[in-house]
């Protein structure tokens, strides 16, 4: 009988398992049955059942895990992936031992998640699969950034069996490469990143709610619908003035209004009621499917303990969604074990109330059974529990001892360095800042997604450019140019271009033009092939707007004029008077028709349709209209020309910009003495001048008397006779020197002369036999000699002239010399 019952239950369990695999289908196909079951089975019964079922050893179907189906190229993986080092082997043995003891001590608990197979089908201990890595991206420094990255980057793959631990746990590198994984893969990666970033993070293997395991957020409030708290803007209403007019009287019937309100209220109430009912139903419908596998679904998430990185309170992170949950959250239904890269802990606390009563004091061996001793986790800090803990389970102590004996360090991770390459990421924006450019470019902003380039200029560009945004440098494309309007004669602020239009905005013009819009037609193909510059696009329409000219009456001040060039029409709209609501309008039709007699019609009343706010006499006259039209025709020509000029300017600017971009010349500040060539030259010249000046000064300080004074015994005071003697000596010496110099020049002069004469004699004697080359030589020698003689002559003459002066100058100087002055004065 017992066996039979078990069998029945087994069947039921299988059925449920099946149902859990296709929850949606089950919901659709057999909702009634489920409901029935629900009503029959209570939580206690389920728990009971669970226990019973866990006792029954159902052989695990040797079904290959889903992930294996994806071909993973294991050939390129490093050897650490494919084999186990002795230390790892040892660790695995320890783990097996630990597992055995655990199953012995706690036979009613499911086996631990200790050493699943990796992608190379090699068993690896879970802690070694965690590879703490600090990512080089500032965005991934905080836990929320990491969590969001993991949840966004990876795609969730459901566990092959939602009720069982997976058989495989891949390395994070493989997971990143594949960009998908189950909750264990997610958690391992996230935990690696968080540990790297300095958090006290753990992978947690336990049980989650259905929504959590299926990454089902339908029950959550959509973050987009959560409105940010409306900042209550209390507009300070201006105190209504005494004579502020009252709003127009409400002439609708109050009774009707009330009836209407009543009706609306009724409708509203009904609507409300219906909605409420609907909601109720919905809620019921939503509520009415408690998970039959509640508390059985295996899930893996991350626990971050407080303490490190200024985390004030421990919390969970669901790796699928990247959301954080408090440890009290209803979604987390139980914890089997948790681990980080150092150690592995088993939860010894009861999870009857989900995780709400759990204490995450991992140093407490009563609550958390650790696998390896000698971790950095503090030993239990609460001594009140100690006795209890000791008395609680002797076996656990044994277990402890065993591990203690084999006090053992966790081997380093077998996983390769986790790398998240920014490959595949797109550069969306580039901003480049410049300085000292001659084209005054300051900032270049390139938006890659739109292809929009925006250049910003400082004041001083030759074309007064302020901002230039474009998609291509080709003319007649979308572009916007902004200008420093004060630097421009025409007051242009902005010019916008599209392939068919050009819009210009002006400010501060004497003619009050503020806006010009030009529509271009398609370019007419000329028969003769000409370049685009000589074949401008035909202008179809020009719209010009003017701001109000206070000197003119409003009826004569044109606000807008439109030249419809192809239609030969001109439309004028005048400014509106201050106390009016309508503005005058005028429309001219340009026709050059010929009347019945063959005379050219100059002007007819129907060529000018006008509406005047205040009809005036003189504007009715044809003459006035004719003159206005003639004037407008002229203006039209001018505007067309202006359009052409604008186009030319755009071309010019584009050309200039291209040249500037290529040239890359820099502006050098006048204070930059190293780079500024001009100032450098100037400075060097100045230095040279200074140097020469210095030399001259040194020369000027030459002491004429020094050699003569040296002859005298030092230290003695000069006597008068000595002084006179000194002077005479100095003078005579100078005279001698002058004479010597004159003689020297004279001697050289004579020598040259003699040589020349000799040569001449020689020439005259040998004139006949001379080769032309020799003659040339002679002639060149002659000219050179003559030149030298002339120079010497000049020098001699100059010397003769200057010598007496120099002599006198020296004499004067000696008189004034402070050392001799007193004696010589007396002498005089």
């Amino acid at each position, binding site marked *: 009988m017992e066996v039979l019952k078990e069998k029945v239950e087994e069947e039921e369990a299988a059925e449920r398992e099946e149902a859990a695999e296709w929850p949606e289908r089950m919901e659709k196909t057999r909702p009634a049955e489920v409901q029935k079951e629900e009503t029959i089975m209570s939580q206690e019964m389920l728990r009971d059942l669970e226990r019973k079922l866990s006792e029954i050893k159902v052989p695990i179907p040797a079904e290959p895990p889903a992930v294996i189906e994806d071909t993973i190229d294991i050939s390129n993986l490093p050897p650490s992936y494919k084999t186990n080092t002795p230390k790892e082997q040892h660790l695995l043995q320890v783990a097996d031992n630990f597992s055995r003891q655990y199953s012995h001590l706690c036979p009613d608990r499911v086996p631990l998640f200790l050493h699943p197979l990796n992608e190379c089908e090699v068993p690896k201990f879970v802690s070694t699969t965690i590879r703490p890595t600090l990512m080089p991206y500032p965005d991934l420094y905080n836990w929320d950034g990491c969590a969001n990255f993991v949840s966004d980057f990876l795609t969730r793959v459901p566990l092959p069996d939602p009720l069982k631990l997976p058989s495989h746990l891949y390395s994070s590198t493989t997971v990143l490469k594949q960009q998908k994984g189950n909750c264990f893969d997610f958690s391992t990666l996230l935990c690696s990143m968080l540990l790297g970033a300095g958090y006290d993070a753990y992978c947690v293997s336990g049980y989650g709610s259905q929504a959590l395991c299926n990454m089902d957020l339908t029950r959550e409030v959509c973050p987009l619908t959560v409105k940010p708290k409306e900042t209550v803007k209390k507009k300070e209403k201006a105190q209504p003035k005494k004579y502020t007019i009252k709003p127009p009287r409400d002439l609708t019937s109050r009774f009707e209004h009330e009836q209407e309100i009543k009706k609306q209220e009724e409708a509203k109430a009904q609507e409300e009621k219906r909605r409420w009912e609907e909601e109720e139903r919905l809620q019921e419908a939503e509520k009415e499917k408690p998970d039959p596998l509640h508390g059985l679904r295996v899930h893996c998430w991350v626990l971050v303990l407080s303490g490190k990185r200024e985390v004030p309170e421990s919390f969970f992170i669901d790796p699928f969604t990247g959301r954080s949950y408090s440890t009290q959250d209803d979604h987390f239904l139980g914890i089997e074990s948790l681990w980080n890269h150092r150690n592995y802990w088993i939860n010894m606390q009861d999870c009857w109330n989900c995780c709400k009563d759990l204490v995450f004091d991992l140093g407490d061996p009563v609550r958390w059974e650790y696998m390896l001793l000698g971790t950095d986790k503090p030993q239990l800090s609460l001594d009140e529990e100690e006795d209890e803990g000791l008395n609680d389970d002797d076996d656990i102590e044994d277990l402890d001892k065993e591990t203690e004996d084999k006090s053992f360090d966790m081997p380093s991770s077998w996983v390769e360095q986790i790398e998240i390459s920014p490959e595949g990421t797109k550069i969306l924006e580039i901003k480049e800042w410049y300085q000292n450019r001659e084209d005054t470019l300051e900032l270049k902003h390139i938006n890659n997604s739109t292809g929009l380039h925006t250049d910003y200029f400082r004041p001083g560009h030759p074309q007064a450019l302020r901002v230039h945004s474009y998609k291509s440098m080709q003319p007649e494309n979308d572009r916007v140019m902004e200008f420093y309007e004060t630097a421009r004669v025409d007051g242009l602020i902005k010019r916008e271009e599209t392939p068919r239009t050009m819009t210009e905005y002006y400010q501060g013009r004497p003619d009050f033009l503020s806006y010009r819009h030009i529509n271009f037609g398609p370019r007419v193909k000329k028969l003769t092939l000409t370049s685009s510059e000589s074949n401008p696009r035909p202008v179809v329409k020009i719209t010009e707007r003017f701001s109000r000219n206070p000197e003119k009456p409003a009826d004569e001040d044109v606000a807008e004029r439109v030249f419809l060039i192809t239609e030969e029409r001109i439309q004028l709209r005048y400014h509106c008077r201050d*106390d009016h609501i309508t503005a005058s309008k005028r429309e001219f039709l340009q026709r050059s028709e010929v009347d019945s007699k063959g005379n050219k019609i100059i002007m007819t009343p129907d060529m000018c349709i006008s509406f005047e706010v205040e009809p005036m006499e003189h504007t009715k006259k044809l*003459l006035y209209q004719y003159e206005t039209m003639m004037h407008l025709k002229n203006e039209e020509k001018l505007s067309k020309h202006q359009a052409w000029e604008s186009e030319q300017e755009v071309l010019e600017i584009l050309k200039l910009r291209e040249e500037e971009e290529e040239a890359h010349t820099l502006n050098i500040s006048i204070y930059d003495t190293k780079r500024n060539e001009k100032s450098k030259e100037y400075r060097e010249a100045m230095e040279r001048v200074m140097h020469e000046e210095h030399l001259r000064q040194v020369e000027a300080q030459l002491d004429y008397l020094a050699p003569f004074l040296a002859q005298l015994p030092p230290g003695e005071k000069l006597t008068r006779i000595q002084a006179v003697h000194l002077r005479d000596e100095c003078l005579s010496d100078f005279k001698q020197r002058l004479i010597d110099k004159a003689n020297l020049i004279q001697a050289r002069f004579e020598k040259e002369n003699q040589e020349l004469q000799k040569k001449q004699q020689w020439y005259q004697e040998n004139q006949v036999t001379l080769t032309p080359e020799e003659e040339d030589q002679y002639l060149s020698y002659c000219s050179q000699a003559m030149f030298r003689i002339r120079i010497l002559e000049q020098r001699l003459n100059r010397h003769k002239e200057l010598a007496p002066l120099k002599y006198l100058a020296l004499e004067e100087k000696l008189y004034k010399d402070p050392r001799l002055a007193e004696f010589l004065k007396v002498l005089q």
Partner: protein
Amino acid sequence: MNRIYNSVEPRVMDDDMLKLAVGEQGPQEEAGQLAKQEGILFKDVLSLQLDFQNILRIDNLWQFENLKKLQLDNNIIERIEGLENLTQLVWLDLSFNNIKVIEGLDTLVNLEDLSLFNNRISKIESLDALVKLQVLSLGNNQIDNMVNIIYLRQFKCLRTLSLSGNPITQAEDYKIFICAYLPDLVYLDFRRIDDHMKYLAETKYQYTIDELKHQEHVRQTKLEEKQAQQAKLEEHKMAFVEHLNGSFLFDSMYTEDMEGNKLSCLPIVGELLEPLTYRDKFVIICLNIFEYGLKQHEKRKLELDTFHECVQEAIQENQEQGKLQIASFEEKHLLNLSAIREESDLPSIEKKIVECSENITELFNVLMTLEMQLVEQLEETINMFERNITDMVGLFIENVQSLYPFCNDLENHHHEKLLEISISTLEKIIKGELDEELPDDVRTLFVDKDTIVNAVGASHDIHLLKIDNREDELVTRINSWCTHLVDKIHKDEIMRNRKRVKEINQYIDHMQSELDNLECGDMD
């Protein structure tokens, strides 16, 4: 004066001559044809040239209201006349005529360029109205007195002056004199005045010029002071309490009061009129009224300003709405019109036209509703304002009237005392006890009791009358001001309303006729 005047028959400026001139000088070619076709109105002419016409007398120019430039040179005109209507004139050439006196230019306030070259003028005068004068040509005339130059100092814009060929130029320091007295002048006798000359002139005549400047300055300040005073008085008048800020009323009481004046010669009466007695008390009451009046005036002004502001705001808002409506309508209308033009199917055209005209009617209704709303709102506001302002005025009058009796009381009190003193004096005189000498005319009053009582009574009556008159004046004036104000506000509002309605109608008519034209065009 090279021309012979008598050899040519003088001509009269008649219509034909003017027409001819206008025709000849009017637009040419195509425009000329049009002009001929239509005819040119004299008042549209901006420039007229009538030289070498042997005109003796300026006439028939009154139609040229907008004339800017008039050339009458080389005629035989003897008097400047008939230019009164040409107020827009900027440029007037009367050179080579026989004018002797400058006159008849008093209305030409816009004149900037005046040429009286080669005439017989001997004195610069009658140009005071020409405040914008920039160029003045008076060459070849008979001006011989330097004083004429000083007359030209009042023209602040004068930059060019020509006096060559006048006797005045014979004076040796002619140029320097002119430069000194007309420092803003740039061209003299067709030449630019250089800085050196200016410097010379400045130094030479510095003293006299400074004196002149000082005089002018003093005159200017006096004028300003007077204006300021006038303005203040004007303000007081607006508050209806003018001349109450002093003893003016009290003084005026005594100006016509012969007996009172005589009596005040009495020693004890003189004491009565001493400060801190009757007169001072009286003035204090006047001052009270004055202060109160000014305060009330401020209040009324504030009220009026708020009212105007609010009304303006309301109108502005209404206009904005109207403009918006029209703009949206026009956008739609234009689309519709172009659609009609392109449509070829007759029934659908008609349908669209109907739609268009419906739109127009709708616009009309909307605009008119807006206007009617505004009218109602404004009416309410105006009525409220009227009530308030009337209340204020009433309060003011009431308070002032409660202050005036104090004056009367004072006067009565004074009267009694005066009577007492007079009688006692009379008794003294009769008894021959009066030790002081009295002037004869005063003594005549003290003949008997009746005379003196009558005299005192007359004085009293005059005083009371004055006080009452002042009170009455105040009350009537403020009342009339109030009614005028309210009337004006009502009238303005009505005008505004009519104007807007007219504007709307005009616009709608235009739209409708445009549509009709289109219709006709399509039907053809």
